[in-house]
């Protein structure tokens, strides 16, 4: 209320205004933080899902398997896999890096193939599989797929 019969002047209202502005700012900042966190989590989750999908594709594609058995990779097929082959199998617009690291057997080998350099924003999916060298030499291996953009 203003004028002669005012219960408070402008400066008395400033206290109230400051408290209200702080409240509004807090509310807006929390909305903004929540939105950013949600969007980042969604993007990260989507990339991770895609990395998992590519990993499953590589472990079940007949072109890489020995005898059609899931997760049993054929040595010859893995050794012959190049950038174009990996890109074709993966079927994703993102850069893909495949690392296959044998963890048993004599002279364990590591295979690395990538379609392009993976960027700073990346997602990694890894699991265990087997590499068939021969019927008497099947090796446990770590398989890691990194997707980047």
């Amino acid at each position, binding site marked *: 209320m203003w004028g002669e019969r005012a219960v408070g002047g402008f400066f*008395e209202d400033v206290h109230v205004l400051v408290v209200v502005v702080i*409240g509004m700012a807090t509310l807006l900042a929390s909305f903004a933080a929540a939105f950013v966190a*949600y969007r980042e989590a969604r993007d990260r989750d989507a990339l991770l899902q895609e990395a998992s999908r590519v990993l499953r594709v590589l472990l079940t594609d007949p072109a890489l398997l020995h005898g059609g058995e899931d997760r049993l990779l054929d040595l010859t097929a893995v050794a012959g896999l190049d950038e174009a082959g990996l890109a074709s199998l993966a079927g994703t617009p993102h850069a893909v890096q495949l690392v296959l690291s044998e963890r*048993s057997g004599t002279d364990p080998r590591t295979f690395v193939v990538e379609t392009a350099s993976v960027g700073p924003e990346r997602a990694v999916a890894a699991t265990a*599989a087997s590499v068939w060298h021969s019927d008497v030499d099947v090796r446990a*291996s770590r398989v890691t797929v990194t997707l980047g953009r």
Partner: protein
Amino acid sequence: MDRAGQSALFDAFLFLTVAIVASAAVLSYASLASSRSEALSRERALEYAEDVRVALMRTTLGDAGYLNRTGARVDLGGWVTVERFLLDEADLRTAGLPEANFAGTNAAIGAIAAGLVRPPFSVGVQVDFEGDGGPADLWIGTGAGPPPDRYTAGWTYETTAGLPVTIAVHLWTV
């Protein structure tokens, strides 16, 4: 400032309180996205345990063997898979051969398993002999057994004597 002015200030503080509570609620809701990711992580960990189990069971052992009752080494050759060896061990142990006679190859299996899993997981292999009066279960891994909070993948087989044997791979994080 008279009573009406104080009332306005009180209203403003009430609004501030409501705004802070609403902000906390919004931020808590946003953190639910992380919780959902955790749930997915558990699903992936179980899938990973199954992959580790299958890969480990298929793996051939370079120098598998055990000691018979006389203490002589029985060489099984290089083609024996982890799965075949553990099932043979189950057969022989239910027949009375002690665990110590298989220690060398069990240690080799433990080393392969430990090298196979990626950080931050630890791994252990448990074999349950379910025959009457059979020896204690076999545990290959760190500690005396798997911790309560773990991810397990298992498979049940039958020995040549017709007894059920379960081989389980446990993963856990430390």
